[in-house]
Every structure is written in structure tokens, then in C-alpha cells.
């Protein structure tokens, strides 16, 4: 009787909608401001080799792994992991919590970019971009701590960003997310390509490209370069912290998982390469204009690149205000769709746990994230808090999530063969023993090394040199992760209220899982029929 009142799960409006959504999620701020700097610092052209190997051995296998879990268990991370093993539900809530923390500060960076898209019209930073960003825009406090003194230039755009996000979330998958992605992704690609083409014709652009692409072979012998490559691929693909798992859970039963995954993965890396070319061409121009070597330039990645170095070069560039507006609009577009995907993880988990409609869950989650985001990060201490939370969430929280996912699902629950069979039942590119070795041995080991070295460094050396007091790192870093751990276990004890799950086995749903052999036969039969229809149509025409 309870099942009769259950709402059917939303689905994407076709394969193209899913691919566009997944690409929009993967292409975020990191592609534009992280990849070029990481590549440059780790051997330039030579970085391509570890990058490609990491892409093939970690990026693609974990992406397929995420897709397989979401598609087979048809649920948000907590329920999907619970369906694998009841004891794994806290891992799902840990991923939801990580997404929650990221969305709180990610929105602020989009708000900065929105504000800068306006500032760029008049090149408001003048000849002191660094001073303008810190003192005029952020009104950064001299003492590190927490405050309720707001910076209006951050607060107003942040409220606009959250209003847009909440509207899209409340509209659900098809009317909200799907439409937003179909507008923003093409706009982003066209605008960013135009900027890159323009940058290539600037004086000094060739020097920038030489610097970016010339390989430093010695770097290949350095293990930290390989760790950087694996770390970057892993962050860049939005894998192993719930996003791709949630997105694939909305796919139709017979969707080609690996075929779609290849397009998503290559689109992401292709955009990164485009960003690398564009950013280094402009850095070459800046170095040329200031008569310094590119190696002497500071702030070539992250917040520093976007809000300090880039404005500096816009002031010296012909047509700088137009390029500036377009560049910051690109940041807004790339960030906005990635933020939506992060929030969808939380909304989906809330829908599964409470049985709420997508609209209700979207509104609750949207406001529940927007309020702390505004209170914590639009203040004069927002940058400090953001820096510490971002470092701990990404370098500890996300990596721990990936290691635990692979260890628990692939090794403890021994799900790799099952998930491999599921992928092969519906996909055009089969996975085999190599894929299983990657997800059970190679990637967990590499990620564990990244996690241990990162955590050890933070424990021994702290973070940010002398910039932050120990108590601040304890609260905004370790304390926040500790709180997340407690909450993950606490929420797992709560009962599922979704009508089709409440009162029964709490959502194990083992009996509902599809037989992969039957699914594979159905897919083969339908594929043959579709191809026959296609051949018939082309013959008759």
C-alpha cells in the first residue's frame, strides 16, 4: 500500500541531456584556473604524460565506477551505499556533507566573479588589482577569525547567485537543471573559445605557449609530479564524492554508460587544454608587457590568477574591458552549473530519506545552504575561512571519500565484478580485468598515498604557513571534518520516510535489483531492432 503513493524517480530527458549535465558539472572553475598552473608547475609539456596516464588509469575507471553504482542502485549516495551494505550508509552521508561544505563556499567564488564581470566594464581595479581585490572588494579584515561585518560587494552578488540556484533546484531535473545546462554550456564554450582565439594574437602569446608546452623531462622522475597529475584528474572529473553517482541514477535503464562517460571525460580534458592555451597565451602577454620572464610572475593559479593576475593583465590589454567581462562571465557560467550539480546530490539524498518532492527538497536544501554561505563567506573574513575550508575539504575530505568508496565497495563488498557486469550489460565499450585492477588496486593505492601525505603535511606543518592561528585551523579545518563525520553516522541511524522505503527493510531493496543478464539481453535485442530500423530507413530513402 505504501508503494502506491511513492513518486516515480525523475529521469533525464534523454542521453544528450545527461551528457550535457555531466560535462557542465565536470567543467568548473578548476578547469580554467587550476589546470594551467598545475601543468606549468609540474613539468609543462612533460606533465601531459602523467596527466594522460592518470586520465586513463584513474579518471575513466572511477568515472565508470561511479556511473555503475548510481545506475545499478538508482539512488542518491546514502541509499545507494546502503543498498550495497547497510553499514556503508555513513559513507554516502559523508559525500553529501562534503558536497554541502563545497557548495557553501563555491557560491561565493561565483559571486566574486559576478561582481568582477561588472567591475571589468570600467576596469575598476586600476593599476592595483591586488589591493583592489583585498581591500575594496573583499574588505578583508586584518585579524583572522569569525565576524558578522559584511562586505557589500560580495553580499549582493551572492544573494543573486543563491536566488538563481534555488529557482533552478526547485524546478527539478528536467525543467530546472536540464534547461539551465543546455543554455550555459554552449554559451561557456563559445565565449571561452573566443577569448582564447583573441589571446593567441596578443604580443608575447607565443612565449606563454612555449613555457606551457615545453617539457621538463626531469619532472617525470619526481613522484610529486605524478601525485599532482592523479590529484588533478581526480578533482577535475567531479568523481567519488557523489555527483556522478547521483547524475547516473537519473539515467534510463538501458543507457550506454561507458560510451557517454568517454564523451564526458574527453570533453572535460579538451576544455582544460583550451584553458591552458588561453591562460598561458595571456600570461605570455603580461610578462611581455612588464618585461619579465613568465617564471617570475606570481599567482598563476586559483583565486590569485582569476582576481589578481588576470585583472592586472586586462588593464594592459587592448580591449581589456570587453575581454574581462567575457572572462568573468565564463567563470560564472562554469561555476554555476557545477554548483547546481553539487546541490543536486544533497537534494536527491533529502528526497530519498524524507520522501519529499524535488521542489520541496530543492527549496529546503537551497535555503539551508544559502544561509550559512551568506553568513560565513560574505563577511570581511570570508577569504580566510574559504581558504582553510577549501583546503581541508578538498585535500582531506574528498580524497578520503574516494579511498573509502573504492575500499568499501570494490574490496570489502567485492562489488567490482557485479558493477563491471552491469556496465557491460548496458554499455557499448566493455570493461574487463584491467578496469577491475584499476578500481581495486591501482587507484586506491595512489589515492591512499595522496591522502596520507596530505594529512601528514597538515598535521605536522599546519596549513598556510603563519597565516592562520592553530585554533582557526582546528575549527574551520579539522573541527569541521570531525563534525561532518559525527553527523554522517548520526543521520544514518534515522529511518527512511519515503513511502516505498518506510517501514520495510529501510531501503536495502536487494530484491528490486535487476538481473544483469536479462538487462543485457534486452539491450542487445533493442539495439539490433534500432539498427535494423535505421538500415531500413536509409535503404528506403
Amino acid at each position, binding site marked *: 500500500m505504501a508503494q502506491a503513493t511513492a*513518486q*516515480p*524517480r*525523475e*529521469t533525464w*530527458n*534523454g*542521453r*544528450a541531456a545527461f551528457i550535457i549535465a555531466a560535462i557542465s558539472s565536470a567543467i568548473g572553475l578548476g578547469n580554467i584556473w587550476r589546470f594551467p598552473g598545475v601543468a606549468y608547475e609540474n613539468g609543462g*609539456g612533460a606533465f*601531459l604524460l602523467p596527466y*594522460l596516464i592518470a586520465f586513463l588509469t584513474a579518471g575513466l575507471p572511477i568515472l565508470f565506477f561511479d556511473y555503475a553504482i548510481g545506475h545499478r542502485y538508482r539512488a542518491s549516495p546514502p541509499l545507494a551505499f546502503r543498498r550495497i551494505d547497510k553499514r556503508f550508509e555513513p559513507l554516502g552521508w559523508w559525500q553529501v556533507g562534503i558536497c554541502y561544505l563545497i557548495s557553501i563556499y563555491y557560491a561565493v567564488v561565483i559571486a566574486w566573479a559576478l561582481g568582477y564581470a561588472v567591475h571589468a566594464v570600467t576596469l575598476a581595479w586600476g593599476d592595483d588589482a591586488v589591493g583592489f581585490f583585498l581591500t575594496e572588494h573583499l574588505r578583508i579584515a586584518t585579524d583572522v577569525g569569525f565576524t558578522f561585518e559584511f562586505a557589500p560587494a560580495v553580499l549582493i552578488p551572492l544573494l543573486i547567485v543563491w536566488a538563481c540556484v534555488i529557482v533552478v533546484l526547485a524546478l*527539478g*531535473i*528536467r525543467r530546472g537543471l536540464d534547461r539551465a545546462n543546455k543554455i550555459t554550456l554552449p554559451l561557456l564554450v563559445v565565449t571561452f573559445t573566443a577569448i582564447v582565439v583573441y589571446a593567441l594574437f596578443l604580443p608575447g602569446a*607565443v612565449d606563454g*605557449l*612555449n613555457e*606551457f*608546452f*615545453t*617539457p621538463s623531462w626531469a619532472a617525470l622522475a619526481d613522484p610529486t609530479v605524478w601525485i599532482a597529475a592523479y590529484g588533478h584528474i581526480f578533482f577535475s572529473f567531479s568523481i567519488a564524492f557523489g555527483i556522478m553517482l547521483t547524475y547516473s541514477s537519473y539515467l*534510463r*535503464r*538501458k*543507457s*550506454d554508460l561507458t*560510451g*557517454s562517460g*568517454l*564523451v564526458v*571525460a*574527453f*570533453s572535460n*580534458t*579538451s576544455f*582544460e*587544454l583550451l584553458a591552458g592555451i588561453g591562460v598561458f597565451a595571456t600570461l605570455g602577454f603580461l610578462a611581455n608587457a612588464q618585461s619579465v620572464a613568465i617564471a617570475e610572475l606570481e599567482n598563476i593559479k586559483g583565486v590569485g590568477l582569476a582576481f589578481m593576475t588576470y585583472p592586472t593583465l586586462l588593464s594592459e590589454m587592448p580591449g581589456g574591458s570587453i575581454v574581462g567581462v567575457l572572462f568573468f562571465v565564463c567563470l560564472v557560467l562554469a561555476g554555476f552549473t557545477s554548483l547546481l550539480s553539487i546541490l543536486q546530490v544533497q537534494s536527491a539524498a533529502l528526497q530519498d530519506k524524507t520522501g519529499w*518532492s*524535488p521542489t520541496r527538497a530543492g527549496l529546503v536544501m537551497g535555503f539551508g545552504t544559502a544561509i550559512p554561505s551568506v553568513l560565513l563567506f560574505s563577511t570581511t573574513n570570508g577569504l580566510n575561512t574559504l581558504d582553510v575550508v577549501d583546503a581541508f575539504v578538498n585535500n582531506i575530505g574528498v580524497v578520503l571519500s574516494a579511498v573509502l568508496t573504492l575500499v568499501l565497495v570494490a574490496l570489502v563488498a567485492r562489488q567490482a565484478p557485479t558493477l563491471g557486469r552491469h556496465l557491460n550489460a548496458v554499455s*557499448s*565499450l566493455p570493461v574487463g580485468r584491467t578496469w577491475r585492477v584499476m578500481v581495486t588496486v591501482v587507484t586506491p593505492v595512489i589515492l591512499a598515498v595522496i591522502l596520507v601525505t596530505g594529512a601528514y603535511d597538515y598535521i605536522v606543518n599546519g596549513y598556510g604557513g603563519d597565516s592562520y592561528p592553530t585554533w582557526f585551523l582546528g575549527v574551520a579545518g579539522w573541527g569541521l571534518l570531525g563534525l561532518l563525520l559525527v553527523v554522517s553516522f548520526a543521520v544514518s541511524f534515522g529511518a527512511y520516510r519515503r513511502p516505498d522505503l518506510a517501514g520495510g527493510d529501510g531501503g536495502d531493496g536487494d530484491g528490486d535489483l535487476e538481473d544483469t543478464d536479462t538487462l543485457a539481453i534486452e*539491450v542487445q535485442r*533493442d*539495439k539490433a531492432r*534500432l*539498427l535494423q530500423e*535505421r538500415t531500413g530507413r536509409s535503404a528506403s530513402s
Partner: protein
Amino acid sequence: MTPLAIVFVVLSVGLLWGGLAWSLLRLRRHPDIPDEEAPPST
């Protein structure tokens, strides 16, 4: 540009953008299979 940098531009573009073109062509050869059940309208 230096010859070595040009080689790496060609390699990068060929592998990544070529990979994207290959994966798109591959996907076209495998049509999307519609489900029998009506999709939810939410």
C-alpha cells in the same frame, strides 16, 4: 614557437581533442535506447 613545444601542442591537441571527436563518433554509432515505461514528468 620552439619545435619541441610545437610537437607537444600537436600531441596534446591530437590526443585530447582527437579523443573527443572519436568518442562522439563512437556514440553516434550506438543509438540511445528509449525505455518502454513512460518517463515521469516532474
